[in-house]
């Protein structure tokens, strides 16, 4: 039995980050502030829903980031792409009168095109993805500022404004906010892609050994470009959600989101070298970050201290991933 557990731990990579998540969750319960009625504030449904809502944009971005990092690349442009599609969404619905579907489509297209360019330049241009996406990070931000004339655009409802259908983004299903619903749905879809679809295997293969993948007959450039395009698409989706949540498209939003997403992926156990990692891990990584921010927020810890702690968490999480957990679970041997 114990042997089986150990084998499970070593074969199922996504499990380690989930154990981390559970530990953090328990930690949060223990350190939760207690309300005047004697309830744990942390465990309140509203609070937990809040945690999920706060992480859902970064969560959607992290899914795409995981794909790119698995191929051995990196995407620094996701924050800017989010700002760009948030802007096109606000303008599309308010000024360009595109209606609900075309506005959403425009945002998703803008995101995937940005991702496609990243991937194509990296693959066929043979430029490191750090550079191509750094360029895209700058250019997409510029484009967003150009569209908006440097100002944010508010989304209003009523007389001269957005169609009612746009409110779907702010509704809740059974108390679960729409962005959270999207985050979970997207994660599930891409878990299936990585685990069951050929493309998923190919993504792991080129990240694990690019030369071997090419010699095995894979279209390495195409596959890598697809990963970047998906990443852009999801950043675009996150941008639409972002605009709908804030009722505003702001070309200056999303700064630093790429780093939060990379942090979540890394905490989730995906190797920055590529080829190794899981989306389940990334999901856990996103939740870990969300829980920690939440419990610190509940205690009124200020942003300065939160950021310092977040830095420490990233390092600790990666150290725990690198060390074999056999050491941690030596008690299972007996």
């Amino acid at each position, binding site marked *: 039995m114990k042997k089986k557990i150990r084998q499970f731990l070593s074969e199922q990579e996504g499990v380690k980050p989930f154990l981390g998540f559970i530990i953090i969750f328990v930690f949060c319960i223990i350190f939760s502030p207690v309300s005047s009625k004697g309830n744990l504030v942390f465990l309140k449904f509203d609070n937990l829903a809040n945690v999920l809502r706060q992480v859902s944009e970064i969560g959607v971005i992290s899914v795409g980031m995981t794909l790119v990092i698995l191929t051995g690349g990196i995407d620094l442009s996701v924050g800017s792409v989010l700002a760009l599609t948030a802007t096109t969404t606000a303008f599309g619905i308010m000024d360009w009168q595109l209606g609900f579907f075309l506005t959403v489509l425009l945002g998703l297209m803008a995101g995937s095109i940005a991702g496609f360019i990243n991937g194509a330049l990296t693959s066929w241009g043979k430029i490191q993805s750090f550079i191509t996406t750094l360029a895209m990070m700058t250019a997409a931000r510029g484009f967003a500022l150009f569209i908006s004339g440097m100002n944010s655009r508010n989304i209003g409802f009523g007389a001269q404004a957005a169609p009612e259908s746009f409110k779907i983004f702010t509704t809740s299903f059974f108390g679960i906010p729409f962005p959270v619903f999207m985050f979970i749905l997207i994660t599930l879809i891409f878990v299936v892609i990585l685990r*069951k679809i050929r493309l998923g295997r190919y993504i792991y293969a080129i990240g*694990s050994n690019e030369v071997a993948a090419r010699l095995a007959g894979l279209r390495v450039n195409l596959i890598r470009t697809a990963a970047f395009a998906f990443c852009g698409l999801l950043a675009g989706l996150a941008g639409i959600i972002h605009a709908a949540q804030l009722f505003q498209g702001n070309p200056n939003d999303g700064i630093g989101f790429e780093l939060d997403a990379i942090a979540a992926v890394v905490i989730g156990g995906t190797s920055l070298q590529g080829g190794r990692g899981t989306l389940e891990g990334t999901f856990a990584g996103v939740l870990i970050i969300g829980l920690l921010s939440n419990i610190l927020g509940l205690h009124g810890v200020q942003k300065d201290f939160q950021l310092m702690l977040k830095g420490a968490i990233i390092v600790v999480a990666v150290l725990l991933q690198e060390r074999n957990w056999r050491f941690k679970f030596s008690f299972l041997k007996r």
Partner: protein
Amino acid sequence: MLEFHQITKSFSGVEVLHQISFSVKSGKIIALVGENGAGKSTLMKILCGIFPDHDGQIFYNGQEIRPRNPREAEHLGIAMIHQELNLVPDLTIGENIFLGKEPLQPLGRVDFNRLYADSDQILQEFQFPYSPKIKVRNLTVGWKQMVEIAKALQVQARILIMDEPTSALSEHEIQTMFEKMRYLKNQGKTIIFISHRLREVYDISDEIVILRDGRYVGKYLKPEISREQLINLMIGHELSSRISDEQNDTDSAEIFSVKDLTVRLTQGMELAGIDFTICRGEILGIAGLLGAGRTELLKFLFGEMKTSYKGKITFSGKSWVPHSARESIRQRMVYLSEDRQTEGIFPHHHIQFNGTLTYLENLSRFGFVQESRERAIIDTKFDELRVKRRTLRQPILTLSGGNQQKVLLSRILLVNPLLLLLDEPTRGIDVGAKEEIYQLIERLSQQGAAIIVTSSEIPELLRMAQRILVLSNGQQTALLTARQTSPPEILQYAFKRI
């Protein structure tokens, strides 16, 4: 007096040196010869501390030495001059000679006056024509090699190890190098040098030490041994019986032919005069020394090298333009890389993933991988090739080299190939697995596949192949019938353009 006593060394279970014992006198030039993979470089790396974990002992002037790293070896007076030059191009000759050992002024600043004075002295003694203040970047390869030697002199090395010192040098530079080597010998230094060029071995050495398959064969004074005897000793007499003799030209359907092919490769190398045809069920061996262009030829034919070429290639009756690995595989031409670790396996993944990747398109519907079919098919293949495994989800890195190789062979065999390009299929695997791979190759040829196989071990090629194509420095120098040739003849052709 330097003495090796029963040196044995294994890499991950594969023994590369077996109980090597011999001794050499000081003040001599000793040539260390043997085929590729005979263990020459490994032995020298042990001597200079790069591989400290070996069995057996080394004695120097009666005292046991066991350098744990190159720095310790230097303190003992042993310095290695590497094939790849370890110089910093943008530093001066003097700075390179004293790299990491710069003389310092009291306050810790580098004492350049002393540095240049000292290097000048070393270089003078060595009759080096350049000032030590010149940047190394401006020197030719030959003189860079001299700077390497000067570095060894700076640490007062008494034993100099040179690994193929002449491989990148022009004829003139070689003569200069030999002059310096003789000078050092007269100074009482011992020089052990590794070379493939037998002519040079006879030119410069006093004694010749022969290794074969990681074993010591013998030590000879130069006049004692003729060139032909030397070649025979390098490759060994005993050849195993040839398994491919009977079924020659049974089925003469031509599968692949190359007419007068010239390929310009990068780094100034060229494949030239390549001309052969191969039929169903035939095995063609490619022989050649290290750097003769065997791998380059296979990779070119497979479409892995995007480069211009002249000549005519046909594959299953149609004109063939090497385009990409993907296209080749679609036409059922497959390639096994010589470099299993960096070009073959996916190290993070299990053997099922590694085995089915190329065939995955045939194992999926609407993009979904049909895993039960996948498992069944790869399991059958693994059984057929006798891959030793616990489960299909076993990480590939937990398999031995031979079993990893069998997984990679499974990968390419799943597409049911017409033509197999196998680059050193038996490199770095144990004897038992080698035997299994010989048998597999024979079986595949009986089933009608055409196979082109390379190996740096000539007896192995003679055992597997019906015909042997010999490459020398990128040029095809012979196309021999295996039954009517011998290792010395093949080696003669392999040395022809060198």
